[in-house]
């Protein structure tokens, strides 16, 4: 298969960003504070790409993708927490501060291994993947579709949020995990480490895009579209819609976990609010804003939304919800294909589906 022009362009732009931003930063043109911010956007973008894989391609609207992201983040957070060692407030080498002051005597079993970075990274992929496998396996086998699926994913993330709130769970309760110091010997507050994470995030984003693109090009990609269109019809052709959806869901959850793992060191905290249903809805908003089912739409949407929030909450702290609200409304009304519809006039690469289909699968 040959790489398509838009994809090549996107990858080239990403590579350019990965190189140019650090260079400009070195020259003092891009101030330091923007680096982790851009890194954060890249993580959101990867998360949106992950959601688009199941929602855009397979028509499975997960309203719980924030959970996979957060789990990846917690896996990384646990590693960072273990790395603090005796540098915590209470100077306990074995226990994170929050456990010390809640009188915990020893580290719970599920914390073991997280002092090893590769293990933590593996868990950042495996745990979300496993959760997606179990939940998706159950749900797709029971032929739960449309809003019913959306709601159980929402219930999942909501339940996880409440669970992680509980101090008894051993994940730091409402405050979550924070006060990180270093990773693999690099200080997190060091600008160099920041740049490194930024580049990693952009590379991961590029990888995610390449992966979804390759999937979309394969016959499996077309099967996914068929699942989105008329899942039941597809079964009569002998394809297991269950397996197709499950594969996409698990893959997507792992990508989301990766995004979370990259996000946490750059943001410096992970806590249960990442599991909140509203956060997951916002991911869907990013995808829809940029253009669902398109390759780079989710990236555009994520960066636009996160960027607009960063910018507007600074310059118009009292009015930004109006501006953002208006943006959402105008995009829906004027750009049915999302923001990317703006850039590709007429020569629509992928045609829109006829209206009836969407109502059937989702209403």
């Amino acid at each position, binding site marked *: 298969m040959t790489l398509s022009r838009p994809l090549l362009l996107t990858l080239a732009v990403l590579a350019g960003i990965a190189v140019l931003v650090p260079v400009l930063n070195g020259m003092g043109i891009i101030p330091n504070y923007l680096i982790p911010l851009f890194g954060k956007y890249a993580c959101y973008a990867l998360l949106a790409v992950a959601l688009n894989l199941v929602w855009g391609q397979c028509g499975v*609207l997960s309203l719980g993708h924030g959970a996979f992201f957060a789990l990846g983040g917690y896996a990384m957070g646990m590693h960072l927490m273990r790395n603090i060692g005796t540098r915590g407030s209470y100077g306990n080498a074995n226990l994170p501060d929050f456990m010390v002051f809640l009188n915990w005597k020893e580290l719970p079993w599920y914390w073991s291994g997280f002092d090893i970075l590769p293990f933590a990274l593996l868990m950042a992929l495996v745990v979300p993947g496993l959760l997606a496998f179990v*939940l998706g396996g*159950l*749900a797709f086998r*029971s*032929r*739960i*579709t449309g*809003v*019913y699926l*959306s*709601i*159980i994913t*929402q*219930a*999942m993330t*909501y*339940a996880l949020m*409440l*669970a992680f*709130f*509980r101090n008894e769970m051993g994940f730091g309760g409402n405050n979550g995990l924070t006060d990180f110091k270093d990773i693999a010997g690099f200080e997190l507050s060091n600008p160099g480490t920041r740049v490194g994470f930024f580049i990693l995030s952009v590379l991961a984003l590029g990888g995610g895009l390449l992966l979804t693109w390759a999937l979309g090009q394969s016959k499996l990609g077309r099967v996914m579209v068929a699942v989105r269109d008329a899942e*039941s019809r597809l079964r009569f052709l002998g394809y297991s819609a269950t397996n197709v959806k499950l594969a996409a869901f698990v893959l997507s959850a792992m990508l989301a976990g990766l995004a979370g793992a990259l996000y946490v060191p750059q943001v410096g905290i992970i806590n249960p609010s990442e599991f909140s*249903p*509203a956060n997951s*809805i916002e991911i*869907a*908003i990013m995808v*829809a*804003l940029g253009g*669902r089912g398109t390759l780079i739409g989710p990236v555009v949407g994520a960066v636009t939304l996160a960027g607009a929030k960063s910018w507007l909450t600074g310059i118009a702290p*009292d*009015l930004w*919800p*109006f501006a*953002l*609200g*208006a*943006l*959402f*409304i105008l*995009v*829906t*009304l004027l750009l*049915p294909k999302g923001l990317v519809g703006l850039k590709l006039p007429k020569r629509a690469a992928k045609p829109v589906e006829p*209206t*009836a289909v*969407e*109502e059937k699968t*989702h*209403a």
Partner: protein
Amino acid sequence: MRLLSLIFGLLMLIQPAFAQSADDAYRQLATGGFTERASAIETLAASGHPKVLPILKALSDGNLQATDAGALVIDGKDALTGAAVTDSAAPIPLNNRVRSVLRGAMGRLALFDSDPAARTAAVEAIQASPTPDSIPLLRTALAAETVPAIKERIESTLAIVELNDPDPARRIAAVKNLGEQATPRAQGLLRTRLAAEENPQVKTAIDTALASIDTRLSFVYFGLNIFQGLSLGSVLLLAACGLAITFGVMGVINMAHGEMIMIGAYTTYVVQQVFRTYLPPSFLDWYLPVAVPAAFLVAGAIGIAIERGIIRFLYGRALETLLATWGVSLALQQAVRSIFGAPNKEVANPTWMTGGMEIVAGQVVTWNRLVIILFAVAVVAGLAAIMRFSAMGLQMRAVTQNRPMASAMGIRTGRVDALTFGLGSGIAGIAGVALSQIGNVSPNLGQAYIVDSFMVVVFGGVGSLWGTIAGALSLGLVNKLLEPMAGAMLGKILVLVIIILFIQRRPRGLFALKGRSVES
């Protein structure tokens, strides 16, 4: 006769507290700290002085003032002499301790009031914290009492005190009495007594009494639990009802649903303020019946505006409505924040919705929740009638099932869409009226209900009003039955897990349609 026994009773009370003279007590009341004030009240109450009751009453109502010089003042007149007072006087502050002493003292004075209601209140006041001192007084009152209900109350109060009587026979009688009361209080008192009791006969009596209390209380608690579950269910139902229309029937993923509820609550607030500002206080209790239609109209009108301005361009693009209505929701929240400010607004229960009805044993069914349950029933019945029996209802369903075909049948789809969305929004507004009666009125109000609302509608089965009802009530009940066992936090997690598992069994909700019609 009555007066005689009154004096007799009071005299018995006076004995221990004669150390201070009434004058000292008045001064202490005026200038002392809380501790002095409490003992001054006891002394005064015991003195039997005729001026005491009005003074204590004024104190309890916050009308008693004191000058720096120590004079007591009521309405600008000296409380003792009746002379006009010119010195500046400040209200005498109370704290909980003084308040409860005051209540007890006034209760004792009112035990012999001619008004049975006053006597009931008096016994209750004593019952709240009975002391051995009150035994003689209660005995006297019991002898003089003619109303059986009050008699019973006095006896049960006596039992509380006599539970620790040195005489075992008295104790057993007290235990019997308490055993019949079946209140958690009796339960607690008996348990405490049991721990200290040595007499085996009394012990068995306590055991029997406790056993009977336990069984009876468990029924009471279960019943109360069911009520609480129904109440939570009715709240969920009200919150979800509008969404059952805008999302369930129309298929709009209406993220601004919560804001319609909020707008209903703010409308209630405004109506209340209008009543407070422009109408005499006696009308204030009736602001709520006005708020209901007002909230329906305001939220409905905003809903129609949203439908005509945005939603109508999105039919057939169900998922896009998610994005647009999320935008609407952001803007509406901020608009309310700009107009009314971010902090909570106070919406008071009307008097007829304040407090509750004590069923048994201090367990209360609150009026506001009871009213809300009934209100939910009324709203749902009305809605069901509209959807089922009116031409409008049929047209709504036809339009949402096949818009082009409906228009080919002569149905003005635009009008129907606008009215349907308006109806859903209006009902959400009505829900806001109800929610303002139990929760806070703030710009975030809607956000608190949006997730639950979607959950209820989907869990019940999208498009089925019965499903929404069953979904709301069952989630409410399950939640409230789990909560006492698991706690609020774990209870809620469990409910979510149950939802996830239940949908596996019924992938299209509780009241799923079956058959071919679903696929078409």
